[in-house]
């Protein structure tokens, strides 16, 4: 191939008038090259995509088959029908959803004001906020949980005679472990920060705020009606990432001795393998649907918002 391009080039430079003489020669060279070039990328591209597709679809298909096909008995949907009545299923799922909702609310309540403030009035704090939000990436969940257990052990050991002890007991309530919400919020901060930062970067926050303020809007009104609607996509993205993180979280919950969804799946796997696989597939489907729903929710309002703006301009 190198020889071919060389000949084409020498042909071009050697001829005095490239327009008249070199064109047919170059055209044939190009045609020859194209004929040799085109099929090759297609073959490797098809092969790569086919192999990747097989690798990624095979476990999904095989585990679906595993849940509905019992060797020697044939097709049965028992794993799915028994699911709702299974001991602890709805309880752990509700706990996980509750934890996810609380984590989303808490992380957004913490991150949104801080990031907006950094954009509007305190740019000097920006690196501080960025580092604080990104630091949890450096601490793996399993390392964080060692620290949390150590701190929680201080409660009975050192603080049993102080009012703080009641707080330690309260955050470890089995029914709704607040300590998990706190830990998950820490873990979610990097993702929330990244998503919100990208959203804020696309919006001219100071101009929007000043425009709204000079029109007489109060601060809560500015945040609620001007800033948050502009951040809808990134808020949805942050919420989705947090939800996925909390629903799938196993490490911290299991080591602290709580039983949300992921821990329940593992605990049930010994006795009912089929059901645990069925739940795993369902959780993947739920994640998929949520992603589709949120990407729809993120894009749809912008199109509906654009429509009135144009229609108002027309008259």
């Amino acid at each position: 191939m190198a020889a071919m391009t060389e000949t084409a080039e020498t042909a071009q430079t050697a001829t005095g008038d490239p327009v008249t003489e070199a064109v047919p020669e170059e055209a044939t060279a190009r045609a020859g090259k194209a004929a040799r070039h085109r099929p090759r990328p297609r073959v490797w591209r098809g092969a790569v995509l086919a192999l990747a597709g097989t690798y990624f679809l095979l476990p999904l298909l095989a585990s679906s088959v595993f849940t509905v096909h019992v060797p020697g008995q044939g097709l049965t949907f028992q794993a799915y029908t028994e699911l709702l009545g299974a001991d602890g299923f709805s309880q752990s799922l509700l706990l996980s959803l509750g934890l996810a909702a609380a984590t989303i609310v808490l992380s957004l309540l913490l991150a949104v004001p801080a990031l907006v403030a950094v954009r509007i009035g305190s740019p000097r704090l920006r690196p501080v906020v960025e580092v604080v939000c990104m630091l949890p990436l450096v601490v793996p969940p399993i390392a964080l949980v060692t620290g949390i257990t150590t701190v929680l052990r201080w409660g009975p050991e050192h603080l049993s005679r102080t009012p703080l002890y009641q707080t330690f007991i309260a955050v470890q309530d089995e029914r709704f472990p607040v300590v998990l919400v706190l830990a998950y919020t820490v873990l979610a901060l990097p993702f929330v920060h990244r998503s919100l930062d990208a959203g804020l970067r696309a919006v001219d926050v100071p101009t929007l705020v000043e425009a709204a303020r000079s029109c007489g809007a109060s601060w809560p009104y500015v945040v609620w009606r001007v800033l948050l609607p502009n951040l809808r996509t990134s808020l949805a993205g942050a919420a989705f990432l947090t939800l996925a993180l909390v629903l799938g979280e196993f490490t911290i919950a299991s080591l602290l001795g709580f039983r949300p969804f992921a821990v329940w799946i593992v605990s049930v796997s010994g006795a009912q393998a089929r059901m645990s696989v069925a739940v795993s597939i369902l959780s993947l489907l739920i994640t998929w649907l949520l992603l589709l729903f949120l990407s729809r929710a993120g894009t749809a309002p912008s199109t509906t918002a654009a429509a009135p703006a144009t229609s108002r301009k027309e008259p």
Partner: protein
Amino acid sequence: MSAPTTPHPEGTAGGTTPRRRRRGPRTWLATLPLLVFTGFCFGIPLAAIAFGAVTRTDPATGATSVTGEHLARSLQGPYLGSLTGSVQLSALTALLATLIGVLIAQALVTSRSTALRSAALTASGVLANFGGVPLAFAFIATAGISGVVTRLADLTGLGWDLYSFTGLTVVYLYFLIPLMVLVTVPALDGLRPQWREAARNNGATGWQYWRHVGLPVLAPSLLGGFVLLFGTAFVAHATAAALVGGSVPLVTLKIADALSGNVLTGQENVALALGLDMILIAGLVMAVYLPLQRRSARWLR
């Protein structure tokens, strides 16, 4: 906490312009909840790890003294084996996932079908989040001892074992490759067709184009992707815990073991020391990744 700080900035900000005085203190206060929260819920556990990893409390007297024995023990014997096992597994899976992910990303970028591209990117987004327990069970049902594929293809006869280093590698690739695709597709999109045309006009072959133009431009993103994958694989715990239990030595499993009280007396703080080791390695990973990411961002506008 915020009571003493509220009036203070109002008073001191008198010398600045009126606009500053009205806005400055308020915006500054809005970052306070975040900083206080991370200080409490992140700083205190972190301090507890660092403190516990280098001190020893005498159970009889209650006296606390500084010691390096926990850190030293965490770098010896089975603990060192688990650290190297984790590093080996992470490096191998990250390398494989980088190579395969780039191939897939290039296939997606060069493909003319936008439907295929967007579907594959959505799937990557979901699968990259599909780590942990559900993934482990999907693979147990597929290639475990009584898995569907194991029975159909008689994998056990071929020497296949899901609950081993190799099996874990295959499972880890399942969420690492989509992550790499997500990271690489923007970088490959950043390779402008003009560069390729310019190289070809100057007589470069396809290989020469990749060797002198494509790969140098992509290198920071690829390296950054590799480091990111390494970090992700290194801290992964749930997948390994649900899959192999303890048969493959990994540092995350060892920490979980130690936290469940599965250590000799007097070695309780080894978990904290191992945690500190992991934080140091993860910190190193981030210290390499962030500059690389910033560098690669220059070409992607």
